[in-house]
Each structure stands twice: as structure tokens, then as C-alpha cells.
């Protein structure tokens, strides 16, 4: 039965190295390159707002001239002036830092909390699962914005850190549910059982067998959360309980602009443009990341 024993070898990609190295093949995809470059630019802006803001010669966001209040863009002031007569371009550039910081910090905090709670609930099950799941339900039932308003109103100083912690406090439940669900489904998988039968240690089974499969879906949600949090921070600030002036953030700018949309629409356009580009880039990066973590989607 020579014909049957012949082993069918699926053709590998032309350059086998591409398939082996998780991130190498992705680098050439436009779906990765474009958002990656944009996020990189945004990070540079966040880290070094001074030089970037100074590109057009008016880099100080606090130098204002009420005489130019709400004026449209002109030479040296590409985005025009805000209602106080400050250079809008400089303000948007300086706002990048706090907006990105709130988005990333909140997501990291919420993700960490969600991973711990979801893992414990999913792995241990029983009473731990029951208690943690009900806790998750309680937080899910809480209106996100209302809860944030109550907490932020009772917090004295509203800084990037306190706002992030508040948002994280109400942001983890969805992710925790997701982690719990995927941990439970992976926990019962044959290959996890196989790992137990090999006598592998508990920690090894969790970190090598259960977590990698369980984390992939939550990573995508996490990147979407970054965008959502930036928007939420804007909403809170618009309601007057997010970051406080003299802090500079896109949320504050949008909140100011909303009153003036009729006579100075550029006040709304430019911060919104930055916000939309940031959120889109991070979300598409998250999708690429998920594909990179799944061996089946490489090549």
C-alpha cells in the first residue's frame, strides 16, 4: 500500500522564516504599517509636545490673544484660534498627552483587573466564580457615566491618574466576563487535559496552555476600549467633571467647541480629527495584534 503511506506535505510559505516569526510577516501589510506609523507619530507628539507645537512658530498653548478669539486658520496658526484666542494647533498637540495617557492607563488598569478576576473565576469555579460573577454583574449594571460622575465628584483633585482609575473601576467588567468565558472554554479543552496528564505544573499549564488562548479575544476588546476611554474622558470633561483647566485635553477642547460650533466649526473639527485618527489606529493595531498571536492567521 505504497500509495497510501505517502505523506502529504502541505506547501509552506515561500520564505519559511515568515511563518515562524510572529511579527515579521505583518510588518509589510498596510493594515499594520499605516496605523503603526500614526500611533508612533502620536506617541512622539505626546512625549515631546513642545517641539511639535512649535513647528509653525507659535508653540505655547498658553499665549492667548482675546482679539483673535475664534478666528479661523491663518498663516502661522494652521488650526486657527480657540475661544480664548489661544493657538488651537498648540492646544491640540499638548492635549495628545493627557488624552492618550488616560486612554492607555485606564485600559491597562482595567485589563489587569479583568485578567485577575476573570482568571480566578474561570479557573477555580464554584463559589469563587459565583461571587466574582455577581460582583461583575453589579458593576455591569451600574451606568458607566453616572458611576464615574458620582466618584469623580467626590474626588478632590481630578488628575489624569484619578480620572483613569475611576474609568478603570467601571471599565473592567466586560473584559472580565470575556476572560472568564474564554478561560472556562479553554480549561476543558483536550490539550489542557493532556497537559495535566503529562504531570505539568499548575503554573505552567495556566501560563502556557490556558492564558494564551484566553487572552487573544480580550486583547481586541482592550484596544477598542482605549478608543472608548478617550471618548469617555471627553464626555466627562464636557460634563465638567473630567480633567480640569488648566489641564489640556481633547475632551476639554471639544467641550469648549460644542458651544461655538455655529460660528467657529474649526474648533470642533481639529480635535475630533485627532481623536478619530487615534481611536481608529489603535483599534486596527489591536486587530493586527490578535492575528499575530494566532498561529493560524500568520503567513
Amino acid at each position, binding site marked *: *500500500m505504497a500509495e*497510501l503511506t505517502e505523506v502529504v506535505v502541505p506547501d509552506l510559505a515561500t520564505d*519559511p522564516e515568515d511563518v515562524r516569526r510572529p511579527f515579521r510577516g505583518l510588518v509589510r501589510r498596510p493594515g499594520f504599517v499605516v496605523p503603526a506609523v500614526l500611533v508612533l507619530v502620536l506617541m512622539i507628539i505626546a512625549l515631546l509636545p513642545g517641539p511639535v507645537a512649535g513647528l509653525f512658530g507659535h508653540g505655547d498653548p498658553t499665549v492667548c490673544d482675546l482679539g483673535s478669539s475664534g478666528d479661523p486658520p491663518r498663516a502661522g496658526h494652521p488650526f486657527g484660534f480657540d475661544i480664548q484666542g489661544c493657538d488651537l494647533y498648540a492646544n491640540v498637540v499638548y492635549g495628545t498627552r493627557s488624552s492618550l495617557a488616560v486612554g492607555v492607563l485606564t485600559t491597562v488598569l482595567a485589563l489587569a483587573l479583568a485578567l485577575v478576576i476573570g482568571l480566578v473565576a474561570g479557573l477555580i469555579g464554584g463559589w469563587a466564580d459565583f461571587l466574582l460573577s455577581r460582583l461583575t454583574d453589579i458593576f455591569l449594571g451600574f451606568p458607566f457615566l453616572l458611576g464615574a460622575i458620582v466618584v469623580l465628584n467626590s474626588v478632590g483633585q481630578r488628575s489624569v491618574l484619578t480620572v483613569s482609575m475611576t474609568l478603570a473601576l467601571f471599565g473592567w467588567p466586560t473584559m472580565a466576563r470575556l476572560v472568564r468565558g474564554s478561560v472556562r472554554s479553554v480549561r476543558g479543552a483536550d*490539550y489542557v487535559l*493532556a497537559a495535566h*496528564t503529562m504531570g505539568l505544573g499548575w503554573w505552567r499549564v495556566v501560563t502556557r496552555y490556558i492564558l494564551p488562548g484566553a487572552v487573544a479575544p480580550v486583547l481586541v476588546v482592550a484596544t477598542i476600549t482605549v478608543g472608548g476611554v478617550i471618548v469617555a474622558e471627553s464626555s466627562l470633561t464636557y460634563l465638567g467633571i473630567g480633567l480640569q483647566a488648566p489641564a489640556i485635553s481633547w475632551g476639554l477642547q471639544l467641550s469648549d467647541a460644542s458651544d461655538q460650533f455655529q460660528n467657529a466649526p474649526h474648533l470642533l473639527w481639529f480635535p475630533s480629527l485627532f481623536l478619530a485618527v487615534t481611536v481608529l489606529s489603535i483599534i486596527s493595531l489591536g486587530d493586527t495584534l490578535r492575528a499575530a498571536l494566532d*498561529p493560524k492567521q500568520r503567513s
Partner: protein
Amino acid sequence: MTSPAAREQVPLLSVRDLRVVFDVSGRPVTGVDSAGFDVRAGEVLAVVGESGSGKSVTAMSVLGLLPETATVTGSIRFDGVELTGRDDRAMRVVRGRRIAMIFQDPLAALNPTFTIGWQLAEALRATRPGIRGDQIRRASLDLLESVELGDAERRLRHCPHQLSGGQAQRVVIALALAGEPELLIADEPTTALDVTVQAEVLGLLRRLQHERRMTVMIITHDMGVVADIADRVVVMRSGAVVESGDVEQVFARPSAAYTADLLAAVPRLGSRGPAAERDGGRPLVQVEALTVEYGNLLRGTFRAVDGVDLRIDRGEILGLVGESGSGKTSIGRALIGLAPVSGGRVVLDGIDLRSASRSQRAGLRRRIGVVFQNPATSINPRYTVEQTVSEPLAVHRGLRGSELDQRVDRLLAAVGLGPTAGRSWRQRYPHELSGGQRQRVAIARAVALDPDLLIADEPTSALDVSVQAVVLDTFRELQERLGFACLFVSHDLAVVDELCDRVVVLQGGRVVESGERTAVLADPQQDYTRQLIASAPYPDPVIQRSRRAA
């Protein structure tokens, strides 16, 4: 015996130059490549082939049930009318009323949220316009009686989850019969069923076909099923028809080399003589009065294993045979401490599992390898072949570097995955391997630590028959070389007969019969064992016919 209608030689269904190409994310993948055959009125035609042969795609294309991504060319003529290129609306007139289909997994084919009665009524209303009220009820009862489902009156009110697999498949057949179709296409109708239930369902199909003068096209991978039920057979491979002809002729004198290979790969009961007697000595595994119970006090318990005694000697392969629910998997799990043992003793190499210390237990686990049924799910999908095989060596033996490399190379070579033509298997991920290759990786992993005992739970049931033959060869070779004892759990008597030294037959968690392989399989003492052996269709139409008559 050819049924009278088959001699009319009028093709009811005629497939010519059928070609189905799927668009898989922009790449064309050929599912069927120039298939052609006839189904004559009143006959049972078996389309047989391994996975990827295109047999199911062929069946689906007859009913126009392929996904949007498929492009179908060629001709499918049913009763003189061309079916290809018809839109959904036009196909609906044919589906159910003239051609009906039954599927592999009966419980998945039934709607879990509605009663059997509701689903039968739905099928009747769809295929017999104008039927109403009491007529529906009477027709439903008739249908259930014709598929020999007892207590039809009460069954109408049952939901699918209250049925066993065999009962559910009967309901699915009843649904298919609602439209009184001329052609019944059965796609692996008994693959998900136990062998005794399979025998009943095949018998039912044969009787219905005869009584209703129905034409049946059965899709299967199982040569035994072909021998049991078919008048003619079409053999497919890689999307093309390799051979077709009368079943006796194809089995006795296959014209294609592939058919001959396929037939040779099918394990046959009674093809091997008695095994050599082995010397006694202290048994490696001793199980006494083992009881395994699932569930808890609140929800009630289910006793999966009920007072089982067995022993496995060193270097011996013990076959554990039974149908689903017989407790065979639970016994395997109890040996590695992964089943809720509620009574009895498991002694491994002189150590009682119940009183063993933590470190003793961990030590024992390293001396037991496990191979699972489905290699697609039992290997970490995020590990490469190398990581999978090297993990137990690195974790338990502390091997590193070139020593580990060499060990992994030797293991992979031992299961036939050595480097071929400069291409290495080591860096592949499971999804880049075929089912047989994955199972070989799983076997390499299981024997990596040179175990004293290997527990193999249906290791070849998910594989094609030709792949099964190769994997069994690999397995036997390894066992002879490494000399491990093995608990081989299987539902397939022929496989057990080819591989094992002794056999234990289980039913409902109890041992029915046990002893030397040839003694149990050739001269069974218990009715249940006899029934099991009689139910497994023999892959030869002449022998199978005489067995059926007996």
C-alpha cells in the same frame, strides 16, 4: 441480490463532469474535480472515500446546498431535469419532496427548541401543501411508526435532547420521508452512532428502501457499511471518481490501485492468530472493584464505572472495548487520577493511587503516557511540533540544548516524522499538519518519557482508514521497541483484534467478558459480545450478506 428496479437501468440522477471550486479568501480550492456517475432508480449507491475526497461536496451540490463561495460547473440531471444553475426558489421544489437528505449528526440536524411533533408537522406542511389538523397528526404517527420508533404517541411531545443518538437518527429519517422523496441522500448516516445502533439504522434504511422503492445514495467512509447496504459503489479520491461498479465486483476485483489499497487498509476481525502466551509476574496495573461516579449530591450522581476489575501486565496491550456510555474512557482517566473514583482500588506498580503521596503520584504520572482520540484538539494549538514533543522532556527530565534536540529528533523519527527532503517538521504548528501527522506528534509526546504504561483513548477513531493503518503500524512498532504496556480503549473490534493481546468487553460500566483476544472475539461466551461482533459490518459484501442472513 440486486433489487428488481435497479435492473431497469434508468438513471434517476446523472452527474457529469461535476466540478466544484471554492473561493477560500481569494484562492481557488477545488473540492470536486470532474466527478461523473449515475444513480439508477431503485438502487442503493454508496459513494465512498476518505476525508477530502469530495464525497460530501458532491452530495451537497446535488441539492444546491453549497455555500456562496462555491462555483459549480458540469451537469447534474435529476429525472431528466438539469439541477445546476437553478436558483434557490426553483431548488426548493425539489428539496424534501423529490430529494431528501439526512446528515451525520442527528442531534445537530434537529432543532433543539421544538418538539418532535412540531418538527414533523413543519416538514409535512412544507412538503404536502394543504395538509392540516388531524391529518398531520396521523401522518406524523405513521412516519414515526415506519421508522420503528416505539411509543410514537408520546415521542411527538418529546424534545430532541430526550432522545438517544439512534432514536434521533430515526426521527431525522422520518423527517426526510415526510415528502415521500424518490431519492434519499444519506451523508454518513451512522458514523456518529454506536455499532449496534448502526446495525439497526442500516437495517431500517434497507427495509424502507425496499418497501418504498426509494433510491438511496449513501455517502460513507466505512467499507463495512458499503458492503452491508450498497448495490453499487463509487470510489472517490481527491475530488475525482476513481472507480465505480457493482459492489461485489469492486470488493472482489478492484480495478483501481487506490481501491485495492483502501480495502487492504480496512482492519478485519479474525485476521490474526492467537498471541503468544506471556509470563505472569506482578501486574503493572491492578484495578479492583473500581467505581467512578459523576455529578454531586444536589443534582444526583451518575455511575459511569460500576465495580470493574482488570489487570494489565508489563508489555501487554489490553483492549478495552465498549459502546458509548460503557465507561471505557472513565477507566482510562481513573488510572491517571482524572476521574472521580468513589470506590475500589487502582494499584499502579505496587502503589495504591488512593493512599499514594503527592510526590508518588507525580512520579507515577511521568510513567504514564496518554494519547487522546482527537489529535486536532489534544495538542496545544500555539505550540510548534518541537515545543509539543520537547516539553515533557524539558520539564520532567530537565534536558536542554543539543541533548534535547537529539531526543526530539529521535522521537519524531520514531513516529515517521523525521526530516524529509530537507524539510523539517519541528517548526510546524498543528494546523499545518494533517490529522494522521498530528496523531503521530501526540504519540511522540506520549512516549517521550519512555513510559511504562500508555493509555490510548480511541487514538485512531478520528482518522481516515488508510491513515489509521499507518498510525497503527507506527504504534505497534513503537510498542515492540519500547515495550510499554498499553490500555487501548476502542469501540472498533477489528482494530482491537489487530493490535491487542487481551480484551475486556464493557457494557454500562460493568465488565461483560474478558480474556485472551482470540478467545473473546472468535468464541464469545456472552450474548452482548456476540451482538457487538455481529453488529460490526464486515467489509466484504458476500460475507456480510451471509452474516446478515444468519
